[in-house]
């Protein structure tokens, strides 16, 4: 079995964090998840600064990114990641409640690798998260420089 790769979950809503982690737990991926509670924290993690100054080197295998967040929102994070040479290779999956077309368009314009609307049905939500985790953390071969366990 392949090594599990680290997942960065950027989400401000604790309910969503809990439900997401619950879903990922189904594949035993929960332990591999680093949760950033907003965009600023996410960037701190990626740039190894602030609270994450001392973390080990390496990029996450995937970033699950909510859009609507306090301080620095998801689109800003996406924009920063995709315009930084050292970060742009990190797969980013926008995971949001928004079905607004403009969010979808803007996200892809900024270079997101996937855009997933959180289903209202819990079962569907769990399925979606499970599939995402399985794909990005297990199946997908991350780019060189990804953080390994």
């Amino acid at each position, binding site marked *: 079995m392949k090594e599990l790769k680290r997942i960065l979950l950027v989400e401000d*809503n604790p*309910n969503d964090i809990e439900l997401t982690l619950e879903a990922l737990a189904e594949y035993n991926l929960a332990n591999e998840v680093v949760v950033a509670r907003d965009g600023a924290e996410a960037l701190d993690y990626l740039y190894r600064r602030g609270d994450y100054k001392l973390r080990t080197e390496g990029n996450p295998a995937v970033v699950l990114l909510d859009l609507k967040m306090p301080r620095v929102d998801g689109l800003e994070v996406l924009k920063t990641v995709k315009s930084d040479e050292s970060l742009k290779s990190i797969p980013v999956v926008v995971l*949001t*409640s928004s079905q*607004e077309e403009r969010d979808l368009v803007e996200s892809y314009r900024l270079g997101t690798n996937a855009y997933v609307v*959180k289903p209202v049905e819990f079962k569907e939500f769990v399925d979606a998260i499970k599939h995402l985790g399985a794909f990005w953390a297990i199946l997908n071969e991350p780019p060189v420089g990804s953080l390994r366990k």
Partner: protein
Amino acid sequence: MAIRTKLALIFLLLIILPVTAGTILLFSHVGDVVRDVRLLQLENVANLAREKVESFFSERKGNAELFQKNAAVRTNLPIVEKYSRDRNNPAYLNACRPLAGYMEAVRAAYGYSGVMLVDRTGKVVAAAVKAGNSDKVGMSLSDFGGEAFEAGRAGVYFTDMHGPDGSYAGLLCTAPLRGLSGEFIGEAAFLSDKESVYSLVRDASGLGVSGETYIGMPMGGEVQFINAFHPDRNTVKNKADFFGGKLAMPMQNALSGKDGSGDAVDYLGHDVLAAWRHAPTAGWGLVSKIDAEEAYSAVTRLKAAALGAGLVFVAFSVAAGGFLVRSIVNPVRELQMGAEIIGSGDLDYKVGTDKSDEIGQLSRSFDRMAENLKKVTASRDELDLEIAEREKAEEARRRAVEVLRASLRISEHALHHGLDELLTKTLDEAEKLTASRIGFFHFVEADQVTLRLQTWSTNTLSSMCTAEGKGAHYPVDKAGVWVDAIVRKAPVVHNDYESLPHKKGLPPGHAPVVRELVAPILRGGLVVGVIGVGNKAEEYDDGDVEAVSQLAGRAWDVILAKLAELELDEYRRNLEVMVEARTAELTAANKELEAFSYSVSHDLRAPLRHIQGFVELLAKNAGAALDEKGGRYLSTISVSATRMGELIDDLLTFSRMGRAEMRMTAVDLGRMAENVVQEMRTDVEGRDVRWVIGGMPPVYGDPSMLRLVMVNLLSNALKFTATRAHASIEFGCLPGDGKEVTFFVRDDGVGFDMQYVDKLFGVFQRLHKSEEFEGTGIGLANVRRIISRHGGRTWAEGALGEGAAIYFTLPAHYEGEPDERA
């Protein structure tokens, strides 16, 4: 060349020269004819004379022969000779008797002056003589016959006319007589006196005075000329004197034996016409002549007469020609002078003559013409007057046109300029129209006493030091003399401003006024404005007044329009501010709405998801602890949350439909419907549904929105026919007007009650229980919203249990509109 000279030349060439030439020709010919006639006449006379001479001599010869043959003569002559000395002898007497009778008979019959018998010695023995003449018996023949006796022995002999001594004039003819035995017995002698010879040439009838006939008798070396009329001319000429010379050439020719006629010189040395004949028996020459002078005298006279007549003719012709020329030229000249006088303008002048010839007619025609010309001139004067009037009218029209053009320029000016520029432009145009140097414009208030100086013309401003007083209000009694125009409500012209008694001084810096024209602008009986121009180089006239008045009137309309426009601009500006404010409000509202939608989308769904999530987790983790009731509650919470999520999604969609940008193109709804039906395949499984989709024209619309319409309508139809064993759903269109197309989706489902038709298209309005038919009730609301945004209408027809039909219209697709179907 003057007409006079021409006429004279024509006259000379056509009349005088031909007549003269003809006359000369004629007379030269007449001369020839007269000569020929004369010569013929002379020849006739000469011939006649020769005949007479010839017959004279043959008569003499005949008589001699009578005697020679006469037996009595031959018998008795010797007897008479024998008894000549014895005349009383009866024998002598017997012998003499028959002789005497015979001789006298011959003498009388032939007109001899004497007939004699001569004996052998030449002595007259018997004689018969003309009464009065002496008896010749006893005389010797040689006494008056010279050699006649001797010559008469041989044969018949004629002597000359004159005796040897010239003592008498007569002609003696002697002839020998022979006796019965043939012996010479004597001679017969016939004596003709000169008269009988003259009588031979006496006939000169028709020869005139100088005409005569000569006999030329040769006498040895001489020629004796005998003339019957002019005995004094009976002369003798020595042959040698004139033979060989020109003198008496006719006689020379005649004596030479020639006959002829022609011009000659006679023996007298006269020029004559002559005919000459030779008389062979006598050897004489005969010449008939007439003096050339007399012969041609008729011609000469005729010539003289003709010359005279000619001269008279020429003189008359010249006189007549002169008269004719004068009669033609003088009237012509009078006509010419008359024409010049008339031409110089005196149309009352009369060339007129009472002559009846062409010139006279011409002159009268000329007078008539002059008279007509006078009339024409008179009518021309009228015409001039008319033309002057027309020119005046034309001038007025021209000025009117100028005014119109100026008005047009003012109107154009008004399009892009403010009120002041418009007024200045009006004044500039008024100045230009009247060639003025200054111009001013005042508004007059409705009280008719308050003035407001509005502006001056460009030129006035440039010539004035200050532009003070602009826009200032001041009463009429403070204004200059020009306010007369307001008081009188009529244009005022002061061509001599200086002399005006009531003029007031001009303010300092004001342009000096020489003359002025001030026109009021009247509206509704009140003066609303005053336009004034001044300082034209000449005096202002009625045309200027009219032009300024008209221009002022027209300009006022433009000014009013400009004022209205300014007012309207003000309103517009206010309106724009209002619109901007309103738009800002709307934009803000829209943004709020968007933010609201966004929040709903984001924030409203999240709690729902959380409710669901945790209900699920609760069921999973604590499900066993719950009783059946608790489990049903959890289930209800979950279903309600789900339902709420659907409602929120529908609301968001509905909201989006109202705001989303439309991408218009040609849309084939039929094909779109077929695709939708194809996608709904799974929903129809196990059902008996008949789809009827007719061909239909393309429409113009947003494909994604219209697709939503088709999905809504077709799924509705499918939904409300679900209770039917056999369903029939039809999508088609009605025949339209080409501008829009009316579509319908008809089903034979449960239908609806028409009394609730108004609720059909409302948001979340349902006509059926949610337990009967699923759905949020927003589908037809979306349809109506989309169709409305396309400019179409929606309506429904149906009856409970009998199916429903939803109608909607869409604009037809025109050529030229975008068509992305291809």
